[in-house]
């Protein structure tokens, strides 16, 4: 007994040493192949095969030697212990009762291989078990790292999108991370405006669906929809282009649909397409939520910038207009003067001016140019310059208006025009000459009755070579002339009713003996009372001339 133990130990060591040498000799080959080679060399078998469990069952993973018909396939049922059967030795490769594979050897003599087989089974089973365990550990570690990457990506995406106001870059960031972290092969993101018109589409690979078709998709709010059966959105049946499985989510803010994010065909290492999982759906929903918040922020930022731009423009226009409108009214013997201007949107296209002329005469005008903001202010500026340049050159106001018209036709932008009332009053005689180029009827109050001075031609700047007819009327002492723009008469209240010329006539006709400045203010105040806070979109200008 005492002498046999060392002998067994020595045999065991030699067995392991020899097996280790055989395995190490082909270190670059995969383990099953090395086991097959070492087992054949070690046993003297003509052919050896290693069977491993795959999805479809036990399959021959490696072999060594020639021939081997006896071990082409594993016996059914698979052997539970070392088995010699019809020239083939079958060895379960196991550790701790778990079978990791089978070794098949052929070309061996008909002997008792029980001990030898168990030794091979233990050695190679241990190796396969260790290898499998190592692989499982690696896979688990990879899985943990992947989950960590998802968390980090969500965090990074939040940070990145918080400062991202460029919509295409923002969309790429969301799309790429969504495709990447769901292992999808392709993806598409579409954003649209309130009417459903696509404003942006980004795709990785060929687009998944027509961008025009997404607005009506009945996707649930904040929840991704998986379809692993067919590449359609199950809630509406819209087909995706050339893919097998899809995952889609709506990008929404407070029930308002901003877009759709979809990915397709989850990849596997072997090239097949896997089902999207509930975890994929949750991840895509989280990305969509972050995208929605960022897109909304970007939109609000764009609107703020636009608002700021408009305000700057209006301030500039207002500055131009402030320089053009008279800072004070001239004192002209025999005449009382008052004027008021109430711009909307900070500035508009109304202009009035007064010119003390030779012989005690008074020139005055009220004009309303087309458009708003800076373009209108620039046109007013052009008219202002033209009037001041031409007023001393023109023989008559008819000629003056023609000169202004020709100046605008030549220098102003296309489709710009204005209406204008120009009056020339001789206070001594009360003779008023005037031209009204498409302007609202001026109101002449004489002895409490109101008379309209109608337009005498088309607006300025519209018709080439247009002419205007000068009219005359006598203003008696105490008579009052009110020239205004349509901002007063076309002011509307909440019922969309206009203030109208009758109300204005009643004001100026009923209080024609009031101080002219008070009358101006009363007219504007009456319009404001009538409108009751409704926003008005046109300037209001009124000029009143009374002969004393």
């Amino acid at each position: 007994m005492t002498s046999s133990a060392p002998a067994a130990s020595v045999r065991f060591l030699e067995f392991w040493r020899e097996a280790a040498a055989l395995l190490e000799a082909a270190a670059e080959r995969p383990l099953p192949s090395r086991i097959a080679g070492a087992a054949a060399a070690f046993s003297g078998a003509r052919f050896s095969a290693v069977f491993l469990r795959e999805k479809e069952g036990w399959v021959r993973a490696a072999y060594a030697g020639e021939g081997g018909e006896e071990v082409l396939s594993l016996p059914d049922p698979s052997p539970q212990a070392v088995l010699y059967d019809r020239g083939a030795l079958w060895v379960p490769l196991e550790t701790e009762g778990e079978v990791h594979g089978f070794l098949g050897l052929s070309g061996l003599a008909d002997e008792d291989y029980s001990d030898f087989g168990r030794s091979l089974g233990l050695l190679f089973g241990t190796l396969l078990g260790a290898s499998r365990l190592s692989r499982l550990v690696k896979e688990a570690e990879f899985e943990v790292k992947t989950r960590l990457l998802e968390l980090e990506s969500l965090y990074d995406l939040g940070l990145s999108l918080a400062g991202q106001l460029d919509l295409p870059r923002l969309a790429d960031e969301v799309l790429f991370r969504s495709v990447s972290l769901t292992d999808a092969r392709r993806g598409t993101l579409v954003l649209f405006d309130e009417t459903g018109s696509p404003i942006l589409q980004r795709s990785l690979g060929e687009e998944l669906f027509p961008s025009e078709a997404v607005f009506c998709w009945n996707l649930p709010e904040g929840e991704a929809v998986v379809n692993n059966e067919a590449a359609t959105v199950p809630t509406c049946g819209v087909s995706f282009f050339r893919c097998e499985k899809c995952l889609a989510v709506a990008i929404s803010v407070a029930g308002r649909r901003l877009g759709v994010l979809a990915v397709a065909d989850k990849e596997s290492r072997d090239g097949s397409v896997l089902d999207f999982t509930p975890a994929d759906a949750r991840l895509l929903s989280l990305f969509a939520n972050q995208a929605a918040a960022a897109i909304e922020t970007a939109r609000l930022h764009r609107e703020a910038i636009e608002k700021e731009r408009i305000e700057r423009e209006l301030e500039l226009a207002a500055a131009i207009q402030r320089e053009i409108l008279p800072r004070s009214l001239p004192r002209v013997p025999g005449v009382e003067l008052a004027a008021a201007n109430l711009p909307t949107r900070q500035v508009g296209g109304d202009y009035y001016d007064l010119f003390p002329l030779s012989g005690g005469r008074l020139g005055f005008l009220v004009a309303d140019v087309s458009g708003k903001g800076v373009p209108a202010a620039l046109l007013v500026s052009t008219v202002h310059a033209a009037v001041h340049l031409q007023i001393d050159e023109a023989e008559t106001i008819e000629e003056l208006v023609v000169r202004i018209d020709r100046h605008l036709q030549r220098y102003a932008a296309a489709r710009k025009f204005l209406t204008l009332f120009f009056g020339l009053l001789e206070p001594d005689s009360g003779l008023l000459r005037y031209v009204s180029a498409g302007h609202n009827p001026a109101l002449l109050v004489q002895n409490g009755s109101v008379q309209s001075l109608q337009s005498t031609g088309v607006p300025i700047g519209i018709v080439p070579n247009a002419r205007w007819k000068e009219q005359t009327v006598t203003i008696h002492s105490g008579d009052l002339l009110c020239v205004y723009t349509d901002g007063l008469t076309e002011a509307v209240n909440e019922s969309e009713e206009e203030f109208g010329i009758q109300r204005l006539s009643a004001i100026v006709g009923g209080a024609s003996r009031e101080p002219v400045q008070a009358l101006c203010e009363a007219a504007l105040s009456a319009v404001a009372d009538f409108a009751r806070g409704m926003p008005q979109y046109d300037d209001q200008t009124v000029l009143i001339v009374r002969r004393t």
Partner: protein
Amino acid sequence: MSDTCKVSAERRGDVALLWTDGYINNQGGEEIAREAYAQLESGAKALVLNLEKTRIVNSIGISILIEVLEKVMDRKGVLAFSNLTPTIDKTFRIMGLAQYAAIYPTLEEALQAVSREPPRP
């Protein structure tokens, strides 16, 4: 952006430069592995993967890159990456690729580094 990754290679002595263009997924990873293994078979000791034109990589692509890295290390070689986007850089660090393969901001820096690198024992 295309979902198909193209890989091109240039050999400078023992160093093989691989340029990727597109999504490193299963297809892209396989393209890289095919070219990398061909370079190793023909004697390359170091591989530099320049990802300047790649903006997206998924876990399948990463697992293939890990296989390439293991193959390079089995052969006592060196693998380096250059021109990664910040997102891919972080991905490689989290997934453990950066533990055994250096990441450089530029191709030139990667080339200088792998040229200096002594062969692994």
